């Protein structure tokens, strides 16, 4: 339902939006996305002028500042026909918040209206956009996975069902649900800074449920990754969540090697 106005991306060149956190903290995840898209015969480019979607300022209440940064996004992706990002919250920012930020800006509003229809979170792009449900992957042995769904993937994008669909079609992969899977990990951008203790208590509950789960935990959102993996590191645990794109790209390589 979040994609009802989206244009079909089939056969079009894809522009990657890596996001500011992805760029600085998890650049390999960006490479994984590129590898998967190229494997699916998509042409990928990377508009070099991109920085950030403006979400941190928007969520903190600084809408003028957010708008200014959002304009750089509109400029950077001016020529793009399809935008794909490995972060659901950034996709939701562009699709749901930009129209509000620019509603009184007749110069930019048409650009926003265009861009919101071509912006996809990575897994919903593959499943809903390209109509690909099966990546033809197989794991060497039966492995159990669980997902940490980001709040945006639950409530603002189609990523929850898309990521489950992709996993369900991997041979030897089984998906179970985490305890309290739909409860927020406590990040929330400015919330984790302003309300650090509260955010920390929410994180603690999330870490407990991840550590109690024997499955390998995957995640589709870069900000949750930074938050939860940071918490796991401070607990001196060896467990880490892995970004779904990194997992898929890794499996792709293993499959190719074994053929």
């Amino acid at each position, binding site marked *: 339902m979040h994609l009802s106005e989206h244009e079909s991306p089939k056969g079009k060149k894809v522009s990657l939006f890596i996001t500011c956190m992805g760029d600085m903290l998890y650049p390999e995840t960006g490479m994984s996305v590129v590898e998967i898209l190229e494997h699916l015969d998509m042409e990928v480019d990377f508009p070099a002028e991109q920085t950030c979607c403006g979400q941190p300022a928007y969520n903190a209440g600084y809408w003028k500042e957010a708008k200014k940064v959002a304009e750089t996004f509109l400029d950077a992706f001016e020529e793009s026909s399809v935008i794909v990002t490995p972060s659901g919250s950034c996709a939701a920012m562009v699709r749901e918040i930009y129209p509000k930020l620019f509603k009184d800006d007749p110069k930019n509003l048409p650009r926003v209206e265009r861009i919101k229809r071509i912006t996809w979170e990575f897994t919903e792009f593959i499943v809903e956009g390209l109509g690909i449900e099966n990546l033809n992957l197989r794991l060497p042995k039966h492995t159990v996975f669980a997902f940490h769904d980001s*709040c945006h993937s639950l409530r603002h994008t189609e990523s929850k069902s898309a990521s489950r669909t992709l996993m369900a079609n991997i041979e030897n992969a089984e998906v179970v649900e985490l305890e309290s899977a739909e409860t927020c990990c406590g990040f929330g951008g400015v*919330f984790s800074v302003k309300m650090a*203790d509260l955010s920390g208590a929410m994180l*603690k509950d999330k870490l407990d449920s991840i550590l109690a789960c024997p499955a390998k935990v995957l995640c589709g959102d870069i900000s949750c990754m930074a938050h939860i993996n940071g*918490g796991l590191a*401070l607990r001196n645990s060896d467990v880490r969540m892995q970004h779904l794109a990194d997992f898929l790209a890794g499996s792709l390589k293993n499959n190719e090697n074994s053929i």
Partner: protein
Amino acid sequence: MKIQSNHFGQEAAINLKDEALAFAVKKATRKAFDGRLQAMAEISTEHGEQIRMQAASAKRRVLENLPALLELAEQRMTENGMQVLWAKDESEACELVLEIAKDHQAGQIVKGKSMLTEEIGLNDALQKAGVSVLETDLGEYILQLNHEYPSHIVTPVLHKTKESIRDLFIKETGMPFTNDAGQIAGHARKLLRNAFLTADMGITGGNFIVAETGTLCLATNEGNGRMVTSLPRIHVALVGIEKIVATMEDFATLTQALSRSATGQKITVYTNMINGPRRPEDQDGPEKVFVIFVDNGRSKIYASKYAEALACIRCGACLNACPVYHQIGGHPYGWVYPGPIGSIITPLMKGLENASPLPYASSLCGACKVACPVDIDIPRMLLELRNDLVETKLSAPMMNFMMKAWMIVMASKLGYSLSGKAAAWFTNLFPIQKILPPPFNGWAKYRQFPQFSNRSFHSMWKEKAKKDG
């Protein structure tokens, strides 16, 4: 009740250390949360969603037409023999109640559960005037005994354990020792029953008022609502002006949306639909029924971009769904209405400057909106309030500075890439975890500060482009 919302941070920190509280709150909210899901999906998931959408549109239609519906309700209620009064703020509302009590020589009052009377501080006003008032909802009664405020809008003692309630009854009412919840409730029931029989006046709130028929509707589970509205000579109902619904059919939708969302029931045990005082042929009922419509800041909200907050039917589902509320319960929010909806109506009613932490007391996860039976967009309004804080210069100067700096960096490609490099260099060179200044040191208490990658994606892509030719 004096507003304490600006101390949210300190109060939350205290509650975070209280393990018994966390246990009680998490257990109770989880039960209510699961109960709601089950009740909403009773027939099918789609059906639950349909109830939600019908309920949402019933309340939205009210908001489109509130002044006219209020007039209609007044007219119909008057025709039904009730006396309708209007109070613009809390002191007017309390004065009206006091006048009624005086005019009817009512020295003893029993009360049904009403958040609005908490909001206007009615009990204090009555007691100051020498009128005795007794809460008869079990939860509210417990709080009155312990001189506490509700921590939840539906289950006011949600923060308390059975043991602490038992001890309170032993100490305050001489109850013999028992560990049986049924026996504890039975003890309270006996005490309350006497009060019902001797009271001169009953005070309640109101869940809905049906405009087309002039009916005051109360949804309760303990039966005290029925006693309060039928045994004393006088019944006074205080209702917020947003409690109107247009038709009986809308009421039917909303009352089940309320019950299913609040407690996971299809319908509450008692649904009182009051159409006026006792008629000559009636066996019981009050001689007079007064309905006081209270504004107390609501019409100001009605005229603002926050009008949809007035669609709230006070079911508490957003509290039960909120991961922040789970951690700390309701008291740290510092006023009558806690949780997600409280974080919106508290600043709107009491002033943003008196509740400035509340809009930030949320990770914006959106669980509240999904749970809300009338689909109130709570995250949207929290964001708007944050923006109002910034625009009215109530935000912290440090934040203002940081956000300006952030904007300058992020809006320029050069600034962005230099800052990324600097961050990577800095975090690799220094024990960043230990030297973070406020406000980031709080972050580092719970998570390892992220290691910035030595190579950004920008540079990786450049290399790839070179390699691919």
